[in-house]
């Protein structure tokens, strides 16, 4: 069984990595670029931080390495658990955002 569990809210870094990998497999630089684009520049992830997060995600079973022939360009892709976790986190964030919008509505 995996040491890490995706139960509970995910960190923004992990959520954005899952989102970047949802539609296709990517290598490290491509993931960082996609995360910056998806977050509109709010989340800027460097290589050291990215690979630390990816290691934890691999350990948790959210992500796997897919093409390891070139050690400089290893590709990563989501597992079924990764997709489920991304959907669950998206639902959670949507619910939180809906609550916030309701409370912030001008009376």
């Amino acid at each position, binding site marked *: 069984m995996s*040491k*890490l*569990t*995706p139960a*509970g809210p*995910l*960190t923004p870094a*992990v959520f954005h990595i899952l989102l970047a990998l949802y539609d*296709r*497999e*990517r*290598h*490290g*630089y*491509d993931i*960082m670029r996609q995360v910056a684009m998806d977050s509109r520049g709010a989340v*800027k*992830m*460097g*290589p*050291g*931080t990215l*690979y*630390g997060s990816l*290691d*934890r*995600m691999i350990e*948790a079973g*959210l992500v796997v390495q897919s093409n390891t022939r*070139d*050690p*400089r*360009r*290893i*590709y990563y892709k989501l597992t079924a658990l990764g997709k489920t976790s991304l959907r669950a986190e998206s639902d959670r964030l949507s619910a939180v955002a809906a609550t916030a919008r309701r409370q912030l509505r001008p009376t």
Partner: protein
Amino acid sequence: MTASPLSPPQRAANCGQHSLMAQEEPCGPSRSLTVYSLLLTLYPQPYLQQHRAELLQNFEDFERTLPSRSELWLFIGKDLLYSLRSQFIKTLWGQTAIVVAVLAILLVFTRHRGVARVHGVELFCLGYILGWFAGWFGKQWRVFSFKGVVRAIGFGALALFIIGAVKAGAQAHSLWAFCYGATLACIAGWIGNRRQTRL
């Protein structure tokens, strides 16, 4: 898949070539890349073995795409500081350094303030260190199926140590200080482990 930037062999092949469409490619690794590869040696060995090639490739990519060298180093410097801290804390050396630093401060503080029962403080530190190392080895070995046996051996050794100390005529407050240190180390280890395993 996205088109990947040129790999180093490709860059080397283009080195010094002129064409109507492209500018001359720079020869060999840049000075920034050399400095970065030296800085990478600060990372723990397992992390470096796994990701060194990828980190260097990413640095080359950023070097090519970021507009200025100062922006590149600001970005990479922040990333290095943050990731080195989180990687270093995971290692035995990192954790030992933190424990020793905290306990050294405690010892200096108690001596400086003239706290009574200095031996109690020292035994507390000993208990803390032993508890911390027991936690570390327990964590390393928990992947094996005999983790229960490892834990039993750890507690057995601790119990034997306490029984031996009682037989040797150790004072009660010294034993309590030792046990208090070991218990605190277990709690700190548990909290640290929870933090590390959070995604």
